[in-house]
């Protein structure tokens, strides 16, 4: 057999060292300002809290200052939301509400490039993800819910469903703009008004969204945005003027919120952590399964509540799958999130990096075998190279606790029943993935897995029309689709007296 040692045409050399030149997106497109203000009552105003400094996690340098709310400001914002609800907003027809949502959707699309840059600078996620996933999906949520605003009577929540009232929302730092869209769009479509608190480390993109909302001339007070730390979040969800709380974040905080709201009669939906199983059977499309595993755990640096952080692979193909997986992970490009060719960006904060570092250390202590991608790691900023643990057993912390980083734990199984038992053996239940070419097995697994979302032969796909939410300690309530809309409506069967 001829091999590659044959001389080529004279003058022609192989280009095995052909590398991609840096292709950075321009930071100037983000038009980052020196300081941002809160958005309350339709105005950009200073809060009474201390200014907070937000940083670019890729450089660990200050990015901008943001005015924050004091507990008193929370009351003011809730007051504006109540006034807006009692005033013009509730008198608008669904069709008129829908027009505002369409305007916001178009505003996001028009400023998509700016939003993507702001998101990447503030969050650390690669620009290709903010550009191709976060921002377009955020616009899609407003477009989708704009269409529902005048059709609520046909949403399956009774003939004349009503808004719940003033909604308090707290969102995390992993998808700052997208989570804002997930929360605000259905709330407004259903006729509610909103007070929303972004995460402490990622307040910028939602304040650009505030400009889009202001430009759309949404009536003042319908959406109020109050940056701040956890104490402001607590003040918001515990405020007596709130009719419903929607929270996305950690299970620990979710439990506190549920405890503090118990007995108040206020509605609550929680979207919390996860430890999803990505299950690969021996009849899976192996190459695409490898892609799905990579996408499942390394998308957004693994800062995804539904990340496929536990790979369950059938023992008969485990060796082949793991070999292909490690080879594939080695090709992932980690580095400057603003570079269009970067696959894995920065960890959002020093705190999170420390958390990932300490949790992964327990993996080795407990006897798992650690593999780290040989990719170069920048010498500044917060980065963590893709990491895979093999020889993991169910009893290890890395198999049970949410790491929320680019760390995959690999377990094996022998039969479908064992896969189901292991996949369900977790306090969480947000998502799961099934890889097999056998249709009947997909359906059987989907029925047996106790997870809110089960992906078949794909992973981490999000669509506004599909309900998203958890089982068990991953929370309750759904976002997206008709059931997501119902979470913001007083429906007949629950009595809106």
């Amino acid at each position, binding site marked *: *057999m*001829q*091999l*590659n040692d*044959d001389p*080529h*045409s*004279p*003058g*022609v050399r*192989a*280009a*095995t*060292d*052909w*590398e*991609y*030149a*840096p*292709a950075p997106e321009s930071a100037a497109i983000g038009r980052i300002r020196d300081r941002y203000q809160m958005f309350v009552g339709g105005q950009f105003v200073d809060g009474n809290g201390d200014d907070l400094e937000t940083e670019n996690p890729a450089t660990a340098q200050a990015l901008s200052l943001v005015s924050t709310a004091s507990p008193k400001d929370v009351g003011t914002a809730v007051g504006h939301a109540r006034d807006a609800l009692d005033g013009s907003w509730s008198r608008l027809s669904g069709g008129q509400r829908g027009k505002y949502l369409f305007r916001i959707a178009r505003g996001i699309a028009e400023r998509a490039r700016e939003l993507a840059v702001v998101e990447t600078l503030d969050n650390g996620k690669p620009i*290709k993800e903010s550009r*191709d996933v976060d921002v377009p999906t955020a616009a899609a949520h407003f477009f989708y819910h704009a269409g529902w605003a005048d059709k609520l009577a046909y949403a399956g929540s009774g003939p004349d469903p009503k808004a719940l009232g003033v909604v308090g929302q707290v969102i995390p730092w992993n998808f700052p703009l997208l989570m804002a869209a997930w929360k605000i769009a259905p709330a407004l479509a259903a006729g509610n008004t909103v007070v929303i608190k972004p995460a402490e480390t990622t307040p910028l993109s939602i304040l650009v969204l505030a400009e889009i909302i202001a430009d759309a001339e949404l009536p003042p007070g319908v959406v109020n945005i109050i940056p701040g730390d956890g104490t402001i979040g607590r003040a918001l969800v515990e405020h007596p003027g709130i009719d419903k709380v929607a929270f996305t974040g950690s299970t620990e905080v979710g439990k506190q919120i549920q405890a503090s709201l118990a007995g108040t009669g206020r509605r609550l939906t929680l979207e919390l952590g996860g430890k999803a199983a990505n299950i690969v059977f021996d*009849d*899976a*499309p*192996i*190459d*695409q*399964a490898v*892609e*799905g595993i990579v996408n499942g755990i390394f998308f957004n640096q693994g800062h995804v509540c539904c990340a496929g952080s536990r790979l369950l692979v059938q023992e008969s193909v485990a060796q082949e799958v793991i070999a292909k997986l490690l080879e594939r992970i080695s*090709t992932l490009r980690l580095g400057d999130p603003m570079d*269009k*060719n970067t696959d894995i960006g920065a960890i959002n904060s020093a705190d999170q990096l420390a958390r990932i570092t300490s949790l992964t250390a327990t993996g080795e202590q407990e006897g798992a075998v650690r593999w780290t991608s040989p990719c170069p790691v920048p010498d500044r900023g917060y980065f963590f190279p893709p990491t895979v643990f093999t020889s993991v057993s169910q009893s290890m912390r890395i198999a049970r606790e949410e790491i929320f980083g680019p760390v995959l734990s690999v377990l094996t199984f022998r039969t479908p029943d064992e896969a189901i038992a292991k996949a369900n053996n977790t306090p969480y239940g947000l998502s799961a993935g099934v890889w097999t*070419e056998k249709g009947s097995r997909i359906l059987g697994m989907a029925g047996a897995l106790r997870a809110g979302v089960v992906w078949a*032969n*794909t992973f981490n796909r999000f669509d506004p029309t599909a309900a998203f939410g958890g089982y068990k300690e991953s929370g309750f309530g759904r976002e997206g689709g008709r059931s997501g809309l119902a979470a913001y409506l007083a429906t007949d069967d629950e009595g809106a007296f």
Partner: protein
Amino acid sequence: MSTAPAQRRATTAALPARLADAARDESSIRGFLHGLPGVDPVGVESRAAALATRSIKAGSKLRAIDLAISMVDLTTLEGSDTPGKVRSLAAKARRPDPLYPEIPAVAAVCVYPDMAGVAAAQLVGSGVGVASVATAFPAGRSSLAVKIAETRLAIDSGATEVDMVIDRGAFLAGDYGKVFDEICAIKQECGTTRLKVILETGELGTYDNVRRASWLALLAGGDFIKTSTGKITPAATLPVVHVMLQAVHDWHGITGQRRAVKPAGGIRNTKDALRYLVAVREVAGPEWLDPFLFRFGASSLLNDLLMQRRTQIEGHYSGPDYVTVD
């Protein structure tokens, strides 16, 4: 086909036991091909689309353009081909842009067998190969004897590479042994002349079939697996080439041998060519960024590469009148 078992043994003797067993007989070939993992179309298409967003700029783009030029099999496969047409194509192949002599020559000129002699005469000493299609191209609907005779004609006329077509009818009918034996027979006729096996992926219908045909051709000794004749739509597509690049990558993993891939047809501009090079680099591996292991079967692509190259160097676009039409 009385010589078939002997040819099979000759072809597969050097292979690892696992692959030699696969090629033992009709049923073992079938078992092997149907035992390959499936290809999920949604997954492979989204991976191809994601890789297509890689941004290739500046020096890296110029380098890629030169690499792509050196990988072109400059092709004319028309009933109207004349010695004059082939001679002018050969001149272009040796020196693609008269203003920039540092531009590499293309890899080969690809013609019908009766034109191989004309091309060979023009390309003596240039290092540019002469690729000839053979085996009743493009349909492949003839007897094995005719296909072997045509292969012989091409080689005797000076072809340094032979581009054969597989019998898609036999493949789709599940007659894998027939396809396998034909490739073995042509490979034997080729001797040291490199053999490109055209799968005509546009007629195979599924990615699963593309994967099976790729492995079948590799098992039978094809030096290249090539997508298309260029006479059928769709010709080369990125996801199909992903599947084929994965096949040669996996083949290398088992055998240590690097086999080549050639997309052909439908690749008309630089942007497309760069997307293929990105796929080569990230799916097969950087070692495949070599005209020995990757080719573009194309005619109009070369002029777009030349125009884009000028744009990179001169800082502005020129136009189609500034590159030669051959």
